[in-house]
């Protein structure tokens, strides 16, 4: 039996929540970054699920816009990783740390 839309959405929501929880809880910026990517993946999953069940009668939506967006998201995520990691590397070179608690020179 094929899973229904709700189940996909549940999984994607869970993924999203896990990612978000990771962002909130992990101290290592790299892991936080991974969690962020997970959130994007969760969004991708719902996009595809919505596309697949979007027509109301259980059939896919016409056209492939959703997939296009998914590809864009993946591409953007990749770019984000590239930029992000380089920033993190620069940070590490300057501060010798990748822990978020150490980033507290500005406040108030």
């Amino acid at each position: 039996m094929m899973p229904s839309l709700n189940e996909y959405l549940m999984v994607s929501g869970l993924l999203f929540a896990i990612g978000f929880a990771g962002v909130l809880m992990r101290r290592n910026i790299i892991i936080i970054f991974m969690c962020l990517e997970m959130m994007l993946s969760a969004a991708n999953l719902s996009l595809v699920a919505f596309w697949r069940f979007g027509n109301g009668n259980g059939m896919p939506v016409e056209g492939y816009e959703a997939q296009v967006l998914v590809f864009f998201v993946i591409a953007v995520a990749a770019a984000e990783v590239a930029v992000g990691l380089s920033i993190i590397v620069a940070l590490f070179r300057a501060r010798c740390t990748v822990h978020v608690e150490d980033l507290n020179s500005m406040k108030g």
Partner: protein
Amino acid sequence: MTIASIILLLPLIAAIAILLFTRKRATLSAYVSVISAGVCFLLTLGLISGSGEAGSFTWLRVGGLELKIALEITGLTKGMILVVTAVGLLVHIFSLGYMKDDAAKARYFTGLSLFMFSMTGIVLADNFAMMFIFWELVGVSSYLLIGHWFQKNSAAEASKKAFLVNRIGDFGFMAGILLLWGATGEVSFSGLEQVLDRETFDPALLNWAMICIFCGAVGKSAQVPLHVWLPDAMEGPTPVSALIHAATMVAAGVFMLAKVTFLIIEAPVAASVIQHVGALTALVAALMATQQSDIKKILAYSTLSQLGYMVMAVGFAGFVHSGDVLGASASNAGFFHLYTHAFFKALLFLGAGAVIYACHHEQDIWKMGGLLRLMPVTAITFLIGTAALAGLPPLSGFWSKDAVMAAAQNNTLLLIVGAMTAFLTAFYMSRLCTIVFLGKARSQASGKATEVPLVMRLPLVILAAGAVLSGFKFAYGWFLNPDDLPHPHGALPLVLTVIGIAGILAGYMVYRGRDRDPIKVEVFARKFYIDEIYLCLVRLLQDGLAYLAKAVDQLLIDGLIVRGSARLTSGVGSLLRGLQGGNLQSHAFLFGLGIVVIIYLITITFK
């Protein structure tokens, strides 16, 4: 340009001229002022003999309001203007001697001229607005002249006090004028009289209005309870006391009341208030006078007392006796007393001034004595004035006091008060004369006193003549019909004469040969503690309220509301800044929290 308006404006021009051009040259300034007073006196003679054309000038016009500087010449006016210019001229002349060596002579004469202008304005005013304007202006000139020696703390305080107490009276005066204006839409005296004749008004309103207007007189004529400024005003130069605080300005209240007799007649309650205030002042002031030791203060209290007489008499204009209103005859009696009083009281003050001048500015009577020998002209004229004040026939005071008592003769209580006052008057004047002129000198200064120069003697002599003659018909008949005065019942004049003589004798017996006061009544000497009570009241009410207001202002309005809200704002700001902890994950948490809040808001707005 009518004669009246020249009389009005000339002193002002003199004052401005001194201020602008001659203030550096004191003697010239003095002559400018004296000449203007002299010309005014001559013009006055022309005015009172002629038909008396008045002038008018629209001072202020806006909307339906038109306030005029308009002159009105009636019998009262003529009598009063003569008093003002005649006494004024004499005081000017006297001042030439008295103020000869004063450093600020120019300022003094500017003040005198300004006063002459203001006083003339009151006298010639045809409406309340104009009268109020000049009413205030005499207050200022009085302020300037009392405070002539402003370096003295007492003089500075006295001038301030005089002005402020007068302002309190003026507050009532203005309120009364406004009430009348609100009811009738008129401010001119003739207009008001016509309106009151034509229409009927709420008597309560008229009574209130009259009482308020009377407040003005209470202030200016120093009636109880606003009498406190006048004794202090003796800090000014003595000629000023003679002119302003004896003969003219303080009488302005009586003059004003006499002018509005038509209103007093319509307001019986107010009239009764006026009578009683006048009588009370007369008695209280006389009692206080008996225990003073400063020669000018004695005369000041005497002035108060006499003003009380006049006010009482004017108040009787509204007295109803057996169905008839006494009317104008009573106020005429008051004005008649004003007229005679102006001469003998100015005489007494100038005489006192001469004595003080001779004794090198010594004012304590217990340091004088035996001056009759040393300065006979002064002494004799002073004694004439005393006799007139005591009401001895046939001097002027006798006639006028007679008229006043005749107005009061149907009110037993006030009649008795009047009689007591008459006795006290004679008593304290006799006390004064006995101590100052008889006996032996009690100090070096008084022992070496010499007669004053001619320029000061001359006014004394002229005024003495006035004190003797002004009570006779020929001297007042030209502005006041003797038939319009109240007629005393049978023995009243005789009784008054006896009382006067008794008072003089009593004073002489008690004080002959004494070196210090045998009678000590602390209450009288301390003026019934009224100054102290007022001081307390001012401290308590005015300053207390002021500090309370200041506290409220600083703590509540500025502190709590204004600065408090500023504090609150910046406090909340700091609190909000606290959210910005700088930690990335707390930022992410707040981010998420924000989303939760928003989604929560969405769900609740959907109900």
